[in-house]
């Protein structure tokens, strides 16, 4: 415990900005979890006497077209947004990473075919692929998570594959093989642990992307369906009127930006700390690894 605190203190000293990002991220997670306590009103309850009210003492961030409290909806929106983003990134990056380990370790035909499949997955712009998938399987929460997760798979696959490719040549892996361990065992106990650092880096880096895709899907009307309060749905509501209420357009987007910013800063710090080798080459690898 003390060790952990020391490590954290050192991390914060070296990466002040990312520590700040992490802190803000934690606060947002806390707000999402404690939404029922923090939100001043029911986010779904319409109040037709207070429609389209600008921010005032009663509702700090104003109300929407049917009188729902914007502040409460922004707080509840954090729940959907974070839940979708975390689930999708964990699901997509994990599947992609496991696939990448298998590719990098087994090589040969399996790797070749897998690489082609990942290339095909990356031939779609993220948002468009997510739109098509969520259209095909329906627009519920699980559908949105699944759709975003799919778009994250090839990134995990490619980065972790390159890690596995170099790890497999190490003597201790060879020793494992020589002592008769099965391929599955070597992958699970010798190669996989080496992939944890890049996995964490990848996951944090993609959290922000997932949040933006979720919001964009909601904004386009193909995300988590209303009346569920999500930041994207609120932005979609904000542009329906002829004279859009600025508070309805401003605050949900601000919430998205602050959240994405926080996770991006945290991700940068984690990357610099866990895997300094990755930093300059990392972006290039993310860009498809064409120049291998």
């Amino acid at each position, binding site marked *: 415990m003390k060790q952990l605190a020391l490590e954290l203190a050192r991390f914060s000293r070296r990466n002040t900005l990312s520590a700040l990002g992490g802190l803000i991220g934690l606060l947002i997670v806390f707000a999402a979890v404690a939404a029922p306590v923090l939100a001043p009103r029911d986010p779904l309850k319409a109040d037709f006497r207070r429609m389209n009210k600008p921010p005032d003492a009663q509702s700090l961030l104003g109300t929407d077209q049917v009188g729902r409290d914007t502040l409460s909806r922004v707080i509840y929106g954090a729940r959907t947004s974070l839940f979708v983003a975390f689930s999708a990134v964990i699901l997509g990056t994990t599947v992609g990473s496991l696939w990448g380990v298998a590719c990098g370790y087994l090589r040969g035909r399996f790797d070749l075919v897998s690489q*082609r*499949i990942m*290339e*095909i*997955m990356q*031939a*779609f*712009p*993220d*948002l*468009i*692929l997510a*739109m*098509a*998938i969520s*259209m*095909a*399987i*329906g627009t519920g929460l699980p559908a949105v998570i699944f759709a975003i997760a799919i778009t994250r798979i090839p990134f995990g696959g490619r980065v972790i594959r390159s890690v596995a490719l170099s790890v497999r040549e190490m003597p201790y892996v060879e020793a494992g093989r020589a002592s008769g361990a099965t391929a599955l065992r070597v992958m699970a106990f010798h190669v996989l642990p080496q992939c944890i650092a890049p996995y964490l880096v990848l996951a944090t880096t993609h959290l*922000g992307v997932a949040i*933006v895709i979720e*919001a*964009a899907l909601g*904004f*386009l*009307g*193909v995300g988590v369906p209303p009346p569920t309060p999500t930041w994207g749905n609120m*932005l979609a509501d*904000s*542009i329906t009127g002829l*004279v*859009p209420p*600025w508070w309805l*357009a*401003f605050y949900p*987007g601000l919430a*998205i*930006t602050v959240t*994405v*910013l926080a996770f*991006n*800063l945290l991700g940068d710090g984690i990357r610099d700390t866990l895997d300094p080798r990755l*930093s*300059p080459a990392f*972006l*290039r690898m*993310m*860009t*498809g690894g*064409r*120049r291998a």
Partner: protein
Amino acid sequence: MRKYLARRAIYAAVTLLGVSLSIFAILRVLPGDPLVAILGVEGHAQMKPADRVRIMADLGLSDPLPIQYVRWLGDIGAGKLGKSFFRGDTVAELIRHRGPISAEIGVLALMVSWLVGLPVGILSAFRPNSLPDGLARALSVLFIAIPGFWLGILVVLALLFWFGYKAPIIIVQLWQSPWQNFQIVAGPAVVLGLAQGAYIARMSRSCLLEVISEDFVRTARAKGVREWLVVMRHALPNALLPVITISGVLLGFVLGGSVAVEQAFGVPGLGRALVTAVIERDIIVVQNLVLFYAVIFVAVNVLVDLSYAWLDPRIRYG
């Protein structure tokens, strides 16, 4: 070079074949009955079985899936992209009519991103950790985090308050009225371009700093070349290659992002056609438009690869 070109083209063709197969699989196999997808569960239940069979046959949806897939490819080869289920437009008309405006937005956005990103990146790398560098980095971190469609909404709001901006209802093509056309595309292009510009600034800064620490740059400095010439003439050309690569990827962001940004600005481009089709569950349109976007994305990446091979003599094609 010709051999490399041919190989790259074959790779792209295979990828696109896979792309078409996955689109087909996503839209036909996953949801089960495409009529349910088009009409919704309730609409489907209200229909008479005979009507269902007739409509399915009309749409060519009752044939075995492999036949449907092959026929789709054949239609594409013949230049027929199918028709909207709800409207009269064919997909080809949709692309012809709305494509140019989206293409303009994309190209302009890419230009904005280079025009903004590169100078900022150079300035940053010129004096690393100085005040302008810090400012530039803070701004690029910020612009990477801001979702384009939100920035779009805010810009539209501001224009609305101060200039009485109205969303364009009809498309004005470039050749019809360049000025009106520019008014439509400028907003989305700048908004999209700024976000990509932030990536370019970041990338060009880090690549330049990497190159500047190399021996040949020290040699240039040692022989007395002025600092700005060292950066512009000796370092920059070597640092640009990764920046060009990232542009290909950024175009993916632009293609996807433009869908949402067009919606924010109310620009009736191809992206909005796709959104409408997705919401209306217009399978034929979605299928062909998604393929169209993927074709463009793949084609651009081939171009980026080729330019890379052309610019970097160290890459041997073969």
